[in-house]
């Protein structure tokens, strides 16, 4: 992905200067040169409704309210409410790869932290008791996950649990770090995103669905 400051990139068909000053900075009231001079500017916001005055309490929609039915989308001949599309099911022998967070770590950026890596230094792949039985893997065993496109993860420990659906495999995101400079995190656990060779993009909003990959455990 090209950085927005890359001269060759022309997101939304504008020049860099236009993009920086008009698109990104215009709402803030300062320009790029001022920002470069002071380095950082903070704009305290009011994320909680109770801190806003009554006139500050409307949303950026035509009605000013949160809209479940979007008139704006209807006017553009698009579905005004999300239309259900059934997700594809995992092929035989595969499980849907899902991911989440652990309360100890923050995304993919705290895995090398001395205190936090001491509390949790690798992730596990959660399999339901029946899935484990079906694939023959045991609790605590190390496996490699292979997705439908043949991509393989690094070895990861299995946790057999009742706390997951029997058609899913769950991992905490942020592990399987490849950089050797992250010496506490390097090589520990597996990376969920390395197995996400496919994403499902919503054509209207661009939102990305990443839980559309299917994996199966393979002996490490």
């Amino acid at each position: 992905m090209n950085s927005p400051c890359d001269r060759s990139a022309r997101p939304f068909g504008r020049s860099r200067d236009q993009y920086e000053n008009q698109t990104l900075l215009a709402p803030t009231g300062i320009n790029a040169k001022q920002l470069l001079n002071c380095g950082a500017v903070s704009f305290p916001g009011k994320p909680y409704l109770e801190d806003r005055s009554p006139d500050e309490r409307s949303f950026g929609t035509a009605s000013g309210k949160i809209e479940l039915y979007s008139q704006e989308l209807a006017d553009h001949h698009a579905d005004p409410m999300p239309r259900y599309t059934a997700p594809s099911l995992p092929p035989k022998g595969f499980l849907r790869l899902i991911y989440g967070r652990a309360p100890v770590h923050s995304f993919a950026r705290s895995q090398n932290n001395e205190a936090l890596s001491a509390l949790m230094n690798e992730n596990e792949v959660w399999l339901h008791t029946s899935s484990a039985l079906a694939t023959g893997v045991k609790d605590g065993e190390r496996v490699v996950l292979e997705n439908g496109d043949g991509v393989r993860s690094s070895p990861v420990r299995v946790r057999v649990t009742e706390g997951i659906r029997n058609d899913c495999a769950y991992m905490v995101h942020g592990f399987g770090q490849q950089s050797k400079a992250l010496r506490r995190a390097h090589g520990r656990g597996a990376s969920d995103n390395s197995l996400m060779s496919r994403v499902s993009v919503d054509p209207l909003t661009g939102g990305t669905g990443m839980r559309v990959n299917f994996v199966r455990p393979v002996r490490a």
Partner: protein
Amino acid sequence: MARYAMVTDLRKCVACHACTVACSAEWSVPAGHARTHVRTTPLAGSFPDLKSSPHVGQCNQCDRPPCVEPCLSGATYQDAAGIVRVDGDLCIGCGFCVDACPYEARFISPLSRKVDKCDFCRPRIERGEEPACVTTCTAHAKYFGDLEDRSGEVHRMVFHEGGRRMETKTVAVGPNVFYLGRPEHLDLVLTSFPPRPPRLLTAGKALQKLAWPLVVGAVGVSLLGQAVAFFNQLHKGEDDFEE
């Protein structure tokens, strides 16, 4: 005088371990040990009817602390505000107190080679601050206060909102860390992490049951023998003994 206590609301706790990290940072707790530990009960039930609860444990500054008695040198004592403290200058690192704690709240620090444990951040309390874990808790699940302060939230939570002690029929030493939560979750925590009956280390038992009686017996016999000899000596008079 105050009677300090803590309440942990397990409905709010997310097991993020921020309390453990804040405490370790505040008191330079060596890696691999913790003054306050966070655990999650094993999952009970089968999908989708599952039950689990986090649990945050530490020294409970008990009403009747079983760790005080086995302390050889008296380094462990309970102060007037109910906090069980360890005088580092008096601790000889024998570890008799470690096994005596039903909540496994004590450990021997590999750095000082003496006993370490939570003391409700005594120095912070003296400065008018709250314990580090309470200040840091990301879910605002921990509360600290004086049980005797009827206007305080800790008093209210313990006496009016059902704050519960982790006690069983056999181990009821009056811990002063109370828990709020759904009754089935509190039950689960109690069965998953029950307080252990206080134990004396084998060395401690050897000292109490073997070495002590032997030594006192031997010295007693010696003293008795010499006492008899002395009375004989007085009775006979010194002339008898001269050459």
